[in-house]
């Protein structure tokens, strides 16, 4: 197998006496969709926080395309190509879709310490923003303020914000949360398309979507990875079923 795009080695995060992340190893290949599943409280979001850089690990390492990013603060990781969408929609409610995404483009477009000339007049920036907006299918709603969008559309703005930084690693934290069947179908199709552009780590509870999208799945229980394998193998694994999937309805 090729050198993994994302390599996590023996990652540890402690909260008091509790191991939220218990010596986690993870290897994700380039342009792979790698799903993280597990019961609530298993530490999936904690792990995503550590990958994104919003939480410092206690020990272990994270490297991306061979570069050790373990000590990098969040804004440097974004420049290194790591982007994250949030579990709880956290877009700028009063800003239009374009304004939202333009901010994400700005983060990667040279110095923000310019005191004259509006970024809305910079064609290159606006084009980049429109490209990301088109990828999530919201071109028609470019000037709509985010608070006026449906929940599903807001989740898509979330993704567009992550895409606008042209990431090579996309961390999607429960992108389907709170979505009805129609929205879910669209989001799943979108994520499938994004695979071409980036390596994806996907945290999700919707098992149908996970089995449809994932190239490989890691199962996290009490902070430990108990299994990493293809969807079929995971689905038929007795260990996994016992620890997690057992009572879950797979739809």
């Amino acid at each position, binding site marked *: 197998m090729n050198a993994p795009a994302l390599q996590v080695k023996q990652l540890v995060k402690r909260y008091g006496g509790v191991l939220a992340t218990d010596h986690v190893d993870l290897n994700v290949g380039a342009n792979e969709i790698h799903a993280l599943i597990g019961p609530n409280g298993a530490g999936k979001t904690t792990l995503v926080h550590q990958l*994104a850089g919003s939480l410092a690990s206690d020990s272990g390492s994270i490297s991306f395309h061979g570069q050790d990013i373990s000590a990098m603060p969040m804004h440097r990781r*974004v420049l290194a190509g790591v982007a994250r969408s949030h579990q709880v929609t956290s877009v700028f409610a009063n800003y*239009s879709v374009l304004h939202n995404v333009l901010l*994400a483009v700005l983060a990667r477009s040279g110095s*923000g*310490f310019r*005191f*004259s000339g509006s970024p809305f007049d910079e064609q290159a920036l606006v084009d980049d923003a429109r490209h990301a907006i088109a990828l999530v299918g919201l071109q028609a709603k470019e*000037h709509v303020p985010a608070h006026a969008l449906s929940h599903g559309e807001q989740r898509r703005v979330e993704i567009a914000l992550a895409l606008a930084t042209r990431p090579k690693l996309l961390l999607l934290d429960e992108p389907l949360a709170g979505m009805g069947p129609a929205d879910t179908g669209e989001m799943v199709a979108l994520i499938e398309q994004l695979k071409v552009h980036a390596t994806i780590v996907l945290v999700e509870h919707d098992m149908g979507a996970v089995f449809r999208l994932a190239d490989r799945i890691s199962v996290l229980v009490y902070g430990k990875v108990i299994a990493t394998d293809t969807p079929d193998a995971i689905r038929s694994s007795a260990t996994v079923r016992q620890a997690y999937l057992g009572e879950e309805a797979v739809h």
Partner: protein
Amino acid sequence: MDATTSPVPLAAAPAAPAADAAAQSAWRLPMPAMLAVLATLLFPAAATWAGQDFYIGFASRVMIFVMAVSSLNLLVGYAGLVSLGHAAYFGFGAYVIAMLTVAAGKLLPSWATSAWVAWPLAMLGSALLALLVGAVALRTRQVYFIMITLAFSQMVYFLFIGMASFGSDNGMSLPGRSPVGLGVDLAKDTHFFYVVLALLVAVLLGLRSLVRSRFGVIVQAIAANESRMSAIGFPVFRYKLACFVIAGAVAGLAGALLANQNSYVSPHMLDWTKSGLLLVMLILGGAGYLAGGIYGTVALLVLEEVLSSHTPYWQAVVGVCIVAVVVVGNHGIAGMFDRSGQSSGGHGGH
């Protein structure tokens, strides 16, 4: 940890920007602004003609406070950083002038008091003070930030109260206004008026440019949702600190001008009630609106001037006016104009 809370209630929430993103020249101003500039240009001549020369000095004082309040506007109205210690940078600028006056001819060459040297140094001094305070204070949020800015400001206040060489509690008179050369004599109220006006216009145009620029858009977004801006990849601390320093520097310039206006500096320019006054003027005028600094300052100072000669209870009247404006809407006087369709520019849009 808050992801979507708006900034401290005193700051205006950014409104949805206009759908039309057409470029707007930084130099073309809306008609009301042009008229205001014209009226101000003619003011000294009008005052002299009416035999009311005193008001030329008064108008200069108003403009100086407009500058100081506008610098606070950048912090409160655009960056969402409510500072209750802004008088420190205002007063420190004035004290730099005093320090240069005392040192000139002894430790420093005599040209150190020239406006061309002293006023930039006042800005630099206040900027450095803001850098030191901001580096610490900006690591806190919301109420803690307010308290820390207040605390630092009081520290500087007490520092100057203790300085015997500058007159301690009584303050210090300055021999005269800063020399400028070029045929300009600031001792003449009219000359001083026009110099202050020119600087104020430069500051307001600079503020206008800044809020529309990359820097301004980023700073306002940080005020709207700081943790998201961090996640997007902005070093938010750096931007907030830069804002704090810029606001401090402009306040320092206003302080230097006030020292000139009064030919006097006093520690009381720095105390917390002055910080509170700047904040009240700003909120009254409308934080987050470019003209907010103008409306609030003019309203308060003119009311004070007009009412204080009629009644000793003028502060009660002013208080009622402030309450009335706040009850009508929480965007100050500028907000009231905005509701009637006439936007004064800025305020989160572009």
